């Protein structure tokens, strides 16, 4: 008989102790998404490419790449944004057979990986999602694609 009393008592005690209690993290729908104006370039933050918007008129890919090669502003630098792209890049974007080819003035072999990522992402954000190849002289790197976010 005693067992039968325990069941409802436990139930009542269990439910009676509940109000609004702290919970764990609950994941909902996708984060709000919107368009951005201005030129999109990618600088480096904590070893990862980070989106930076520069206020400007609609710009050509060459102009955007030049903005990238110019490096972060003082304000950006103070927030920890850096770049790996050498300032003497002298880029020139051209389209070849549905792929984007960026001719640069420096040796593509010696470019750091992050710099390549920065260039590829910036070009893709400005032109199209077509793969990007880097060429300098007879040397070629790519075709490459900007790593997706969130990684899927």
């Amino acid at each position, binding site marked *: 008989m005693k067992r039968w009393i325990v069941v409802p008592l436990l139930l009542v005690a269990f439910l009676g102790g509940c109000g609004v209690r702290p919970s764990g993290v609950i994941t909902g729908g996708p984060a709000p998404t*919107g368009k951005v104006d201005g030129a999109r370039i990618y600088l480096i933050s904590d070893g990862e490419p980070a989106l930076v918007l520069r*206020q400007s008129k609609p710009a050509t890919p060459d102009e955007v790449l030049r903005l990238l090669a110019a490096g972060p502003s003082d304000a950006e630098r103070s927030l920890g944004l850096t770049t790996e792209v050498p300032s003497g890049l002298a880029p020139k974007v051209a389209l070849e057979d549905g792929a984007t080819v960026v001719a640069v003035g420096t040796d593509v072999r010696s470019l750091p990986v992050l710099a390549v990522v920065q260039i590829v992402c910036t070009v893709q954000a400005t032109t199209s999602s077509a793969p990007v190849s880097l060429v300098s002289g007879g040397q070629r790197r790519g075709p490459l694609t900007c790593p997706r976010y969130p990684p899927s």
Partner: protein
Amino acid sequence: MTAWTLGLRGRLLLAFAVLGLTTTALVAGVSYGQARTVILQKAQDAAVVSLVDQAARVLPLRELPPSQDQLDAIAQNLGEGPDPAVVAYRGRTASSSDLSLDEIPAELRGEVTGGRVVWQRVTMGGGPWLAIGTQLMTERPDGGTEPTGIEVYRMHALGDEQRSIDQLAALAWSTGSASLVLAVLLALLAARGVLRPVRELGRAARRLGEGDLRTRATVRGTDELAGVAQIFNQTAERLERQVGELRRMEADARRFVADVSHELRTPLAAMTAVTDVLDEESARLPGDAGKAARLVSQETQNLAQLVEDLIEISRFDAGTAALSLDDLDVGAAVRATLRSRGWTDQVETELPDGIVARLDPRRLDVIVANMVGNALRHGAAPVTVRLRAPAGWVEVTVADHGSGLPPDVLARAFDRFYKADTARSRSDGAGLGLAIALANARLHGGSLVAGNRSPQGAVFTLRLPSGGGA
């Protein structure tokens, strides 16, 4: 195991209470839980949707990284309502009120970078709050999305929901208590309905056990208890019939004995008269003839005594024996009895004068004569007769110094026609003496008890109420 000591009513009450409590707890508990979930979910969803809508309106961004002014503007925009908001971008924060980023749970901040809206219920300032966080995303030209690095957080108070849920809990508690009370009331009702026939049956059985054979139980309806009552009634009826039959047969037998005794009385009286004459003449009769005449005379006397005893017993059996009480000095009465039987010299007496009681002198004489006669016949000298007067009683004790009474004799000493010694000669009496003595004692409302005393000898104790008895 303790339940079985509770009785039927207790067990019924317990069962109903447990049933009611379980059902209520389940129903109330489940609906409470459901309602709580719905209330919380609704509130949370509304708060989340509101934040997402407002955050989407912040876009499109013109500049990234944003200036502090821009962050402040976003924070103010999101914190317009009652809920404080805080905005963070790579270590820089802006808040719509005094809410700081540190108050947002680190766990939540860690999950924000996953690109989805996340929320968490926390306790802040003693009350429940909902912390919602998300990152602003932008569309890429290729259709994908990427984070801008701007994280927005907003706290939403759940005080109203807490109050609603508390009300629900209070309602559940009161419902549970009410249903418990109801269950107990129902159990009491049910117990009464079931227990009343059981109690009646029990009462009837007790009355039957006490000898009231006409007792019948009330048969109500056609349920199991009614069946039991019916069986009870049939049993009682059969018992009554059989006992009645036995009683009738016994009464017939007693009447027969009484009738026979009465019929024998008259011829015996005549015979006694004749044998008295024979007795007187026997001395003059020669040899065997004289012996035969004395034998006939003796046996006739015994027969006459037996018939008198039987008639006396029949009166007791028929209930016609009546006391004729008189105030008498008990010591003197006992002495008279001994004297009239010629036993004065054979008996040691201790009979103080002045003990007066209201008794039937003839019956007292019969009892004392039986007791002393028995002691003289079966016991060994010296036989002592002692009279005492405890408060409200007179007590006559007759003791001998023989071998005492064996246990089986002790148990049956007062039975009719019981003779302890089967080899005993017939002239010693028919074995009705003590039965008559006991009946006489009882008629007075007293008692006659046989026993043994130490070191040896039997003792018969007569106790009669001194006030006249029943």
